[in-house]
């Protein structure tokens, strides 16, 4: 019978029944006529015909079986029956469904995070063939670093697995020529960048290598959104001029709608200009040679795999190491940095290593919660099943096969799981919006966090999983003993309670594990936040601006000096400073120490943080001067080049000497500079970092940088007068725009977002796990106690003390629970190493993450108290009943 006709039959049920009645009536009538013809009276004939026609009701039933999809019928009956079972104790059922739904909801929302962050493909053609070229420095535990431009060009010349190979970096840009001056994120791209992504222009053209030639490089490509917003979608924009950062550029192309490469910038990239392919950037010896500011991307050639590309890049890296040995040794002691290169799928790099690990950790956590919830559900269904043991035995005696009974149980488990999943999906949709707000991620990827088809498919899978895990257990359990005709209320249930107790131990172990993970991560976070920062972010407001100085001007410092002078008259300001960024982030600039050729450390290139600052920078941030002097406005372009260094740098490079007066050399060719150390200031720990990088501060009058940050410290008890500040600066440059105005402590706070979010999420999951497992403990003890009421009454009647009874009822469960706690700690001790690597990924202090006895003792104590409550509450209730009442009830 085809499925289709089964369904059709189902729909025509009534009609077919009527037709069958008619057919049978015809048969009986014909038979009657036949008997009448044979000489019987009409009544006799009719009676005989009916007898002869056989059991019509049976026939009808048989036909129904033949016509109707039997399993649909049984299924419906099972569902109705199951629903009746669930309705029997609505309170308990609701609680059980609710706890399971919490587990499913947590799983759904974390899977949706996982899917959005790690699985959903990037919106480019064959995006799985896009890779990023990365540098690894194994000895320094730095991975997935950006390669330098010379490295990228060497790779491009040598590779046989990648084509095209390209790179880009991003910066702020100010654009004039549209409806009004605007700021946007611009990308400086190597000509093949957009082609590598597989993007076609909607209007005009993409860049070619010729656009890198001097005199031809003043061309720009605009994003669709930018074009619509600022040029009203005017198609004649092609070949027109706009002004980018003070220079004239010709618009050559418009990108199609929706094309946006916004994974590494706080806002989408809106305009694209050719990368300045000058020797400054492309040669290995010039000023910016060692800068790791670009990101290199490439497309796998047809037939090439990521593994092949990865292996090839490692080979190229070995050659580079031989060709340029000094570039790949640590400055301070000449140690090999363990340099290598590799290809990472771009999709992976879009979410950093730390965040990736974090997402998997969360997914593991909710997976464990699901197992705990499954165990609870199985316990619940098992308790229900045992209540039904007499009924099951009757049905088995009436001939219901084991398969039939198993199906009945699975249907009930499915009904249960489906209810919980529906509720879980609802919770997940709420949680997803909360999580989106908490993540507050710049990446467009996470905007897809929510309930979409793959996520719902995952939830369905979870439903099936729960059905099988939670349904098969009680079913098998019961079917195995279905012919054992004992009165279930009399069994002490030794084997039964062993299964239950093993489940309890597993649940407890799992929740202890989660609790420990949370404690470890939270401890790491606390230690990190307790580290001295070396600066005072209080009352400091930061705003970014881009110098309005003409494009190639040598001196942005002159403007900044005027800005600061204008601010001097503004009330409520304690101090103000200009810098090329708020706080330092990583060691970027390469230099060598002058005049120490005897020392291995000075032979190779050193690396340090680099910050261009105005003199009051140290005052604004409260960074103390240790030796010598800080910078002054007398350190100008025409005076001696000077630097101020931090204590860490002094320690590393001039351990036993006075750093003042020492000289360093940076850059090469026309940009070669020799600068003298004039002062040492206190260390500043970059937000949320463990290690202290060596740091160089240079004068804003000696170095030009159009992308600047204004730091203003408000006078004590005052708020930064933003409008007054803007007004003061606009007396110098009337059109000067500001953006990203925010308190410094918010910026610092944001840098700990991920670990704080992790701690919070893991914390809530751990609490959920503990609550669920406690509920499990409680349910089981409650159940076991209820089944032994008579025994308890009897024992009390013959003189057992309440203590004896409590021991009798609670001790087995307590023992299993403590076994669970022990197992949890044992696994936890092993797991601690894994969590430590996760913590390292967030720059958490690694060495400090260990299970100290105090943590173990505290966690155990809390847990034991909760367990005792869960065990003793139902047991104590059993004691309150008068033994006489129960015994008389027999």
């Amino acid at each position, binding site marked *: *019978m085809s499925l289709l006709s089964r369904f059709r039959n189902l729909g025509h049920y009534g009609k077919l029944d009527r037709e069958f009645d008619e057919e049978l009536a*015809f048969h009986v009538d*014909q038979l009657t006529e036949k008997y009448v013809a044979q000489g019987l009276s009409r009544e006799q004939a009719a009676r005989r015909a009916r007898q002869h*026609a*056989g059991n*019509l009701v049976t026939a009808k039933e048989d*036909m129904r079986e*033949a*016509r109707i999809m039997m399993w649909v019928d049984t299924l419906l009956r099972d569902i109705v029956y199951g629903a009746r079972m669930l309705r029997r104790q609505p309170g308990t059922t609701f609680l059980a469904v609710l706890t399971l739904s919490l587990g499913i909801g947590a799983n759904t929302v974390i899977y949706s995070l996982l899917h959005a962050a790690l699985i959903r493909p990037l919106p480019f053609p064959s995006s799985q063939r896009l890779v990023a070229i990365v540098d690894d420095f194994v000895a320094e535990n730095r991975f997935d670093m950006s390669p330098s431009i010379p490295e990228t060009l060497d790779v491009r010349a040598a590779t046989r697995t990648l084509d095209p190979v390209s790179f880009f970096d991003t910066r702020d840009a100010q654009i004039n020529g549209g409806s009004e001056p605007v700021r946007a994120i611009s990308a400086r791209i190597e000509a093949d960048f957009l082609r590598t992504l597989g993007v076609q222009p909607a209007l005009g053209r993409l860049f070619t290598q010729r656009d890198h030639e001097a005199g031809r490089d003043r061309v720009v490509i605009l994003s669709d959104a930018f074009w619509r917003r600022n040029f009203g979608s005017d198609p004649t924009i092609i070949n027109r001029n706009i002004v980018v950062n003070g220079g004239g550029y010709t618009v050559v192309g418009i990108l199609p709608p929706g094309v946006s490469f916004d994974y590494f910038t706080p806002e989408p990239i809106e305009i694209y200009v050719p990368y300045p392919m000058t020797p400054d950037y492309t040669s290995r010896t010039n000023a910016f040679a060692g800068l790791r500011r670009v990101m290199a991307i490439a497309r796998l050639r047809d037939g090439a795999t990521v593994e092949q590309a990865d292996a090839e890049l490692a080979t190229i890296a070995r050659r580079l190491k031989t060709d340029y040995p000094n570039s790949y040794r640590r400055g301070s002691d000449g140690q090999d940095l363990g340099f290598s290169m590799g290809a990472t799928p771009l999709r992976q790099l879009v979410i950093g290593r730390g965040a990736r690990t974090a997402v998997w950790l969360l997914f593991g956590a909710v997976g464990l919660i699901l197992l705990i919830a499954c165990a609870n559900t199985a316990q619940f269904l098992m308790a229900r099943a045992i209540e039904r043991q007499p009924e099951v035995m009757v049905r088995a005696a009436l001939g219901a096969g084991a398969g039939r009974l198993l199906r009945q149980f699975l249907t009930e488990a499915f009904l249960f799981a489906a209810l919980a999943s529906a509720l879980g999906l609802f919770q997940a949709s709420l949680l997803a919006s909360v999580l989106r707000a908490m993540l507050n991620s710049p990446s467009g990827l996470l905007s897809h966090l929510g309930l979409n088809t793959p996520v719902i498919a995952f939830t369905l899978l979870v439903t099936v999983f729960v059905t099988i895990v939670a349904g098969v257990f009680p079913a098998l359990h019961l079917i195995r003993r279905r012919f054992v005709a004992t009165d279930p209320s009399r069994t002490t249930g030794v084997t039964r309670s062993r299964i239950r107790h093993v489940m309890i131990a597993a649940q407890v172990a799992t929740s202890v594990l989660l609790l420990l993970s949370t404690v470890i991560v939270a401890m790491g976070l606390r230690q990190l936040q307790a580290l001295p920062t070396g600066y005072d972010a209080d009352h400091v407001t930061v705003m970014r601006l881009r110098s309005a100085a003409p494009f190639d001007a040598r001196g942005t410092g002159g403007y900044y000096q005027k800005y600061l002078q204008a601010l001097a008259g503004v009330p409520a300001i304690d101090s103000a400073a200009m810098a090329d960024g708020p706080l330092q982030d990583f060691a970027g600039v390469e230099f060598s120490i002058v005049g120490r050729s005897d020392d291995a450390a000075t032979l190779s290139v050193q690396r340090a943080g680099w910050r261009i600052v105005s003199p009051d920078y140290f005052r604004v941030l409260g960074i103390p001067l240790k030796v010598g002097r800080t910078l002054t406005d007398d350190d100008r372009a025409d005076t001696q080049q000077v630097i101020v260094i931090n204590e860490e740098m002094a320690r590393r490079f001039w351990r036993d000497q006075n750093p003042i007066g020492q000289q360093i050399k940076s850059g090469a060719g026309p940009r070669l500079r020799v600068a003298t150390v004039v002062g040492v200031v206190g260390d500043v720990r970059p937000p949320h970092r463990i290690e202290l990088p060596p740091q160089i501060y240079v004068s804003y009058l000696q170095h030009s940088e159009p992308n600047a940050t204004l730091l203003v410290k408000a006078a004590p008890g005052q708020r930064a007068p933003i409008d007054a500040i803007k007004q003061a600066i606009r007396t110098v440059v009337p059109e000067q725009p500001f953006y990203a105005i925010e308190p410094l402590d918010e910026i610092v706070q944001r840098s700990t977002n991920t670990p704080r979010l992790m701690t919070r999420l893991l914390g809530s999951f751990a609490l959920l796990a503990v609550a669920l497992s406690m509920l499990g403990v409680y349910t089981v003890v409650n159940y076991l106690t209820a089944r032994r009421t008579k025994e308890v009454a009897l024992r009390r009647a013959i003189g057992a003390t309440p203590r004896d009874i409590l021991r009798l009822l609670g001790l087995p469960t307590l023992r299993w629970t403590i076994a669970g706690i022990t197992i949890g700690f044992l696994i936890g001790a092993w797991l601690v190493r894994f969590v430590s690597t996760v913590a390292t990924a967030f720059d958490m202090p690694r060495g400090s993450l260990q299970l100290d006895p105090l943590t173990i003792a505290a966690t155990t104590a809390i847990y034991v108290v909760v367990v005792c409550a869960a065990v003793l509450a139902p047991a104590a209730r059993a004691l309150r009943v008068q033994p006489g009442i129960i015994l008389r009830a027999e």
Partner: protein
Amino acid sequence: MGDNNKDQLQGTLDLLVLRILSSAASMHGFAIAERIEQISHEVLRVEAGSLYPALHRMTEAGWVKSSWGVSENNRRARFYTITPVGRRRLAAEEKHWSALTSAVGRVLKNA
């Protein structure tokens, strides 16, 4: 609906019905029953309780098809016709049956 070979009696009824239908254009259930009784000299009696479920099973299996028509005494009745699938099935059943009966016959003769 499944293979009926395991149920020998049911299989036999199917065989008889298919055989009757194979030599007629179309017949209603009563006529089929009558014809089986008649040919078997009233040895085989077919009850409605077995016949109609069998007919419906065979309809679902696609061996016969049915349509409503008017009987010889002007009553509405359901008429059954054998399908090509049914004819193939009949051939198979006949072969099976003769193999079975000759096997039984050999055992009875030679045991």
